[in-house]
């Protein structure tokens, strides 16, 4: 089923509703944190380290402080507050040493941005440049420690494993079967290395926070362009030593996140500035340069994979090492590393396997979650390796995958049993392979023939999987109140930053209550004082967890309505049915009441009243998840796996290296479409973002580890001209029994494995295996010109220094 042909079996779930907040967004009324102003508000600017690693010898702030309009100037000497999601390794301002080119050295709050910028220009900092840690190999040698206090960093124990006297922020592991024996018995053993650079999220609204620390109550009020208000609340409370209740977080409209706004970033510094400025609200907004160079990114990664297979195409052994170039601070990076140990094999059933995943500190811009974190990266490695294995075995890559994919009765890397309720990778693969008309790999003769025309076509595909990566106690909740007109006001704890959470939740409630979706209003601004708790808006978890919470709340609302209606109609609640905003007796439908007669309490004709305002709530918690065993990685980390596959047809210009994507078909087993229009948008958007990672994007550092492309001039993202000629979304609906109407998440998945599918299609076209992203025209062309069949990459660190 694709796009506009989709038909749902439900009246409201599955329908193509317009998104709830669209009207505000097309009229310019939608206000983002960037747009907010408050009385007495100050504007902040930062000074960034020009070196990847340097000693801060001195900072003279006197001229900046003397500038009229300046209200606060802060340096690292002014605060020792440590912040961190999983490891407390980051200061709001660097102290003593800077750890990356872009690290914040000083900050100013002033009456306007101009004055703040001028004050920054008046700061006089003396640095002593130090030799930086360039890459993961140097980091692993541990001659220089990015954090020399690594042995004492506070972190979540038993989940993350920093290594003593090293640059390893966490070393996570998983093991199963007897790997040595399996390799010894394999007919063929193939070992490869793959890598990809750091890539930026590029939300159109850069990070921005407005914070006021009330000088009297010490309460902290935050308005932020962020995905996770409750995580900010908790971390701020921890870092500043106050109660969670004394931190209020407001999230207005958010101009994109993609994981880059999942954690906590500018809020602590803005708080310190507000405090230093006597409690004025302070707005701290990242410029686009700071967004690239100071705010975190997706980590670069190197994957080394050794696989053992039998002659007939069964994978019997895999040993994987993932090394994450996570930059100066751990942030979400350690969780990315952790995720790789249970999901880093892709959707394959392999009995003997080991994964070692190291999140490594270097002196680069630090890393965080990015849409499907860890998965685009690990799948780039795994799905290229699978393709190369099938080449070496001489087996069709479709057949080869079908022999090894997870299916009911098999187990994942962490030992989870796959059932019919888990969804089907095979259905996804079969659907996309059919859509692009796959008939097998090109022969060398066919390639040569096409090569003479200057353009060679290729087809390829790749699998993907992802489950939400989250703690075992991840929870969502919702509060619903009925108004006197029978409409419902809903408060959720997740942020709708474009993925459509508000619309999806409204549809689920509307389905159960059987009222028009227009009668459900989801409060679009999150305020932690009013909205109920939600862990983080990340991980493609919300349709599943929020959906289940809304189902509970809607059913409770219905139960309360029916209890009052039963009394009023002199019957039992069980005798009542509901439809179109009314409850009625199942046998005598004329005995009926409208929701609005009950919404604020039912009043009999004589005046006696019963019930009262109808309010309900619902919670959901990640059901049955367990922490992974520290040594074996065994356990249940996944609430719902969404499996998927992409298949690509492309054309390579063999003289220029330019690639044209002619078609990409993308199938996901999402159990049940909740809103076809929104799913479609997640797929087209995710595929094009994945295309950016595949053929275009990436950070470039010079030999001094300074970022060379901190602007749109040289850090490009796809434009409308770069769209694939055709994107075909395919929805597979094998329901998950504990999902809302059977649904699973799909927000992140469309991005994953787009690079792998393109890499595989390029092999089909050219007979060349590329191991490094991006597959830019330059990389493709230089690969062709090299005459080699395995392209292990170019040295990206050889650019001249500033």
């Amino acid at each position, binding site marked *: 089923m694709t796009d506009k042909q989709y038909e749902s079996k439900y009246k409201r779930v599955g329908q193509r509703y*317009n*998104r709830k*907040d*669209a*009207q*505000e*967004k*097309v*009229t*310019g*009324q*939608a*206000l*983002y944190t*960037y*747009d907010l102003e408050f009385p007495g508000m100050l504007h902040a600017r930062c000074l960034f380290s020009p070196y990847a690693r340097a000693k801060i010898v001195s900072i003279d702030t006197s001229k900046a402080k003397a500038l009229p309009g300046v209200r606060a100037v802060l340096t690292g000497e002014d605060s020792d507050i440590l912040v961190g999601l999983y490891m407390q390794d980051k200061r709001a301002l660097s102290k003593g040493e800077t750890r990356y080119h872009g690290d914040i050295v000083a900050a100013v709050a002033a009456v306007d941005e101009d004055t703040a910028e001028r004050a920054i220009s008046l700061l006089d900092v003396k640095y002593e440049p130090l030799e930086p840690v360039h890459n993961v190999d140097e980091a692993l040698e541990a001659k220089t420690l990015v954090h020399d206090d690594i042995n004492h960093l506070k972190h979540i124990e038993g989940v993350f494993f920093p290594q003593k006297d090293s640059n390893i922020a966490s070393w996570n592991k998983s093991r199963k079967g007897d790997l040595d024996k399996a390799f010894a018995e394999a007919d063929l053993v193939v070992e490869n290395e793959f890598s990809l650079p750091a890539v930026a*999220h*590029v*939300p*159109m*609204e*850069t990070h921005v926070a407005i914070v006021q620390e009330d000088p009297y109550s010490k309460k902290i009020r935050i308005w932020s362009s962020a995905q996770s208000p409750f995580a900010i609340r908790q971390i701020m409370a921890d870092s500043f030593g106050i109660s969670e209740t004394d931190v209020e977080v407001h999230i207005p*409209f*958010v*101009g*994109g*996140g*993609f994981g880059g706004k999942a954690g906590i970033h500018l809020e602590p510094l803005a708080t310190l500035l507000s405090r230093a400025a006597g409690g004025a609200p302070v707005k701290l907004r990242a*410029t*686009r340069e700071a967004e690239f160079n100071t705010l975190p990114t997706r980590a670069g990664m190197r994957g080394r994979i050794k696989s053992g297979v039998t002659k007939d195409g069964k994978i019997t052994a895999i040993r994987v090492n993932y090394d994450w170039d996570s930059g100066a601070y751990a942030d979400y990076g350690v969780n990315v590393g952790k995720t790789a140990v249970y999901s880093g094999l892709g959707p394959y059933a392999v009995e003997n396997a080991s994964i070692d995943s190291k999140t490594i500190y270097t002196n680069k811009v630090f890393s965080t979650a990015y849409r499907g974190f860890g998965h685009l990266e690990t799948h780039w490695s795994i799905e290229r390796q699978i393709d190369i294995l099938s080449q070496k075995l001489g087996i069709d890559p479709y057949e080869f995958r079908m022999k090894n994919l997870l299916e009911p009765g098999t187990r994942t890397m962490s030992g989870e049993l796959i059932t019919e309720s888990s969804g089907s990778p095979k259905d996804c693969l079969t659907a996309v392979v059919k859509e692009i008309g796959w008939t097998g790999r090109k022969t060398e003769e066919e390639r040569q023939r096409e090569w003479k025309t200057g353009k060679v076509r290729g087809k390829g595909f790749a699998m993907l999987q992802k489950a939400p990566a989250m703690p075992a106690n991840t929870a969502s909740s919702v509060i619903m109140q009925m108004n006197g007109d029978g409409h419902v006001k809903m408060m959720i704890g997740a942020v709708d*930053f*474009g*993925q*459509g959470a508000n619309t999806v939740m409204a549809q689920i409630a509307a389905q159960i209550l059987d009222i028009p979706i227009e009668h459900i209003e989801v409060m679009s601004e999150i305020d932690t004082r009013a909205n109920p708790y939600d862990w983080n808006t990340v991980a493609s978890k919300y349709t599943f967890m929020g959906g289940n919470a809304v189902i509970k709340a809607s059913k409770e609302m219905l139960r309360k309505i029916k209890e009052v209606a039963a009394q009023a109609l002199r019957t039992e609640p069980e005798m009542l049915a509901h439809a179109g905003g009314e409850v009625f007796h199942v046998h005598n439908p004329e005995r009926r009441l409208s929701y609005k007669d009950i919404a604020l309490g039912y009043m009999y004709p004589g005046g006696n009243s019963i019930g009262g305002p109808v309010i309900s709530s619902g919670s959901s918690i990640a059901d049955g998840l367990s922490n992974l065993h520290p040594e074996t990685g065994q356990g249940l980390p996944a609430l719902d796996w969404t499996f998927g596959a992409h298949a690509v047809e492309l054309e390579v210009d063999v003289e220029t290296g330019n690639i044209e994507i002619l078609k990409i078909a993308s199938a996901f087993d999402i159990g049940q479409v909740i809103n076809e*229009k*929104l799913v*479609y*948008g997640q*797929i*087209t*958007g*995710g*595929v*094009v*973002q994945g295309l950016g990672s595949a053929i275009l994007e990436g950070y470039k550092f010079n030999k001094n580890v300074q970022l060379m492309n901190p*602007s*749109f*001039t040289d850090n490009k*993202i*796809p*434009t*409308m*001209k770069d*769209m694939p000629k055709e*994107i075909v979304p395919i929805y597979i609906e094998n329901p998950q029994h504990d999902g809302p109407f059977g649904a699973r998440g799909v927000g992140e998945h469309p991005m994953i494995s787009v690079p792998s599918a393109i890499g595989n299609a390029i092999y089909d076209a050219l007979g060349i295996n590329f191991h490094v992203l991006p597959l830019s025209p330059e990389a493709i062309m230089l690969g062709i010109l090299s005459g080699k069949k395995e392209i292990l990459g170019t040295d990206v660190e050889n650019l001249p220094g500033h």
Partner: protein
Amino acid sequence: MSNEKDCSMYTEHVESGKRKVTIQLKVNGHQVVRDIDPTMSLLHFLRDDQKLFGTKEACGEGECGACTVIMNGKAVTSCIVLAVEADGAEIKTVEGLAKNGKLSILQEEFIAEDALQCGFCTPGFLMSSRALLDHNPNPSDEEIIEVLSGNLCRCTGYIPILRAVKTAAERERKELGR
């Protein structure tokens, strides 16, 4: 209003020492006369002075199109236009698209085709599209793509936006006789 007006006459701003220059222009049909700092960009004039927050800054360097407005009938990135250059000009922003409480066809089609997700780039896309359709009521796919590729969107993958502009053009031709 005239281009010939002498802009070299300044009044010294007493407190900050900044020079001010008077500009007179039309914003969404309204006459505006203001004394401004000549270093101010048109974007900042619209946002900070006129409090029209629909126009967004996402790069400040003309690379992303989020700040696109229509100036004298042409789509421009307002972040790299000085406000004083708009003296005598006619400016249209996203706030000027809907009339009499009714969304324009273009806005309706952006909603219907889900041509937006986070919505931050949307005003810019709407204004680039509006300028295009004003000049060319029946653009080909290639013409739409040529004009809109100066606007970056990280959410939608662009396909829904292309669909929205096509259907809007079709409806405008039919319903407005363009």
